[in-house]
């Protein structure tokens, strides 16, 4: 029986959340399809991440920690994952759709001769085949797609699948050398600017607090940051304020920014243009604060509060801190 392979993205031996979710989905599909689950981790620290995957239901885990696999590149890592899939006879490859996963899904698919299923948010097994749900038009519609070819490569949207839990017998962990040629290493990393502080990516965050034009200027975003900190979340922004240069594009939520589905999304001073709604409507709970009671954001909000963000946000931040403290 051909199996399922999960790519475990990791840093310093710790798998990232999107990869734990991919392992969780891999374990579920493994049961539904009766296919063995395996995993592969790559780069420095890969053996520790592989051991973690082995505790989470993967019966065989390969780790690639060769000099050529030191830094992430779509070509070399794509080759390594495709090589692992062949070595393990896996015909379904799952990855978390992080920045790496977005690069890797097509890179792996190309090397396995298929087309990727990108950024899936759901799956169902019908007649031995997997029917994938994936948002299109930034979530304005949901496509159900099938892969009729022999091999499937699917990237899974962060926060859309339940992570697996450790338990059961630990699988076997083995070193693997995919034979990465020099020609896969043409891109050279020269420098990393503004090194990522220990910051959760917007797409993986459980809580996102976004600010819009209602904040009236970049100098008032400390209000958004304060509430985000109180809720243990990260800061997002509307397209209008990114276009105005108040906030970096990395924070933009919407069709030309990021699509997020956190447990809690708080929209502060955001009216809710259709392209913004597309990027956050799949959040589990939406809170909106806006001075215009007719603003479209209230149509998708679970909890709406009409009023001035400059009065409400400080009070809300204080009340959240008090509620959490008690």
């Amino acid at each position, binding site marked *: 029986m051909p199996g399922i392979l999960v790519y475990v993205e990791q840093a310093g031996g710790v798998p990232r959340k999107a990869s734990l979710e991919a392992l969780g989905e891999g374990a579920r599909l493994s049961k539904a399809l009766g296919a063995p689950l395996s995993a592969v981790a790559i780069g420095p620290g890969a053996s520790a991440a592989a051991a973690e995957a082995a505790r989470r239901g993967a019966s065989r885990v390969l780790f690639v920690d060769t000099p050529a696999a030191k830094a992430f590149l*779509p*070509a070399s890592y*794509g080759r390594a994952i495709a090589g692992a899939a062949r070595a393990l006879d896996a015909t379904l490859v799952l990855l978390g759709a992080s920045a790496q996963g*977005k*690069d890797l899904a*097509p*890179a792996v*698919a*190309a090397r396995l001769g*298929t*087309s990727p299923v*990108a950024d899936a948010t759901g799956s169902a097994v019908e007649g031995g085949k997997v*029917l994938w749900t994936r*948002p*299109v*038009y*930034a*979530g*304005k*519609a*949901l*496509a*159900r*797609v*099938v*892969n009729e070819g022999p091999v499937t490569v699917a990237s899974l949207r962060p926060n859309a699948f339940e992570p697996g839990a450790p338990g059961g017998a630990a699988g076997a962990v083995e070193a693997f050398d995919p034979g990465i040629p020099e020609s896969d290493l*043409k*891109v*050279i990393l*020269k*420098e990393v*600017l503004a*090194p990522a502080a220990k*910051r959760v990516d917007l797409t993986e965050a459980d809580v996102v607090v976004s600010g819009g034009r209602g904040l009236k200027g970049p100098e008032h975003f400390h209000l958004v940051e304060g509430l985000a900190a109180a809720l243990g979340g990260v800061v997002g922004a509307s397209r209008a304020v990114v276009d105005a240069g108040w906030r970096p*594009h*990395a924070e*933009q939520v919407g069709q*030309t920014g990021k699509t997020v589905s956190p447990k*809690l999304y708080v929209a502060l001073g955001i009216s809710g*243009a*259709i*392209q913004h709604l597309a990027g956050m*409507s799949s959040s589990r709970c*939406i*809170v909106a604060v806006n001075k215009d*009671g007719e603003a479209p954001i*209230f149509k*998708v909000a*679970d*909890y*709406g*509060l*009409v*009023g001035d963000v400059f*009065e*409400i946000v400080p009070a*809300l931040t204080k*009340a*959240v801190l008090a*509620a959490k403290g008690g």
Partner: protein
Amino acid sequence: MIVAVCIKRVPDSTTKVRVAADGKSIDPAGVEWVIGPYDEIALEAALRLKEGGKASRVCVLCLGPKEATKEVRTALAMGADEGVLLVDGGGDRDAASTAQALAAELKAQNADLVLFGWKAIDSDQAAVPHLVAAALDRPCVSFVTKLEAGTAAMMCHREVEGATEVVEVPLPCVLTAQKGLAEPRYASLKGIMASKKKPLVEKPAPAASAAVRTVRMDLPPARPPGKMVGKGVEAVPELVRLLRDEAKLL
């Protein structure tokens, strides 16, 4: 250096999506079609390379329906030198099939630098650039926010999850544009006039094929009607109570 820019005809981001009668695509009625916003950024970056004396020609390549002539013509009006439209004969076409068609044409064009937008905002796959790069056996750098051309290599800034990586990639290569790389210009009247005399070749695209097929398309489930908690600061305690007791989020 010859630069090829691949563009896609997509519905404008303000489009309200409705599902078509076939149940697996969107209803094109009333849709305003545009060049993909990230593709436009890629095109702008290419035009600046030309204006900076780094590129000799900017060629635009599009795979799409006959109507996509409009988007290719717009790219010419913005300043591209020539356009090729691979006219899609219809039928299901997955990203791999699109990439094969584009890669074959790009091979013939022999462009040193191939630019894409990092994703198309309709299918949201971000797959075609990497598939093309693999087909052409070229390195691919995605999410590029800054670009400098050297003689044999490109120096790129790429934005990934809060950090900016500075990478060097030798030519020939494939790059994908992220917002921030360049603010696309509007076509000038002069550009529009000039575009009418620029070469725009239409040829049939290779036949479509698809392993990955959309079998159904639905609108996302409507969110249950929300609650207006209240007005002003007085409503804050009730909001916090709801978040704690009802939504169980605190």
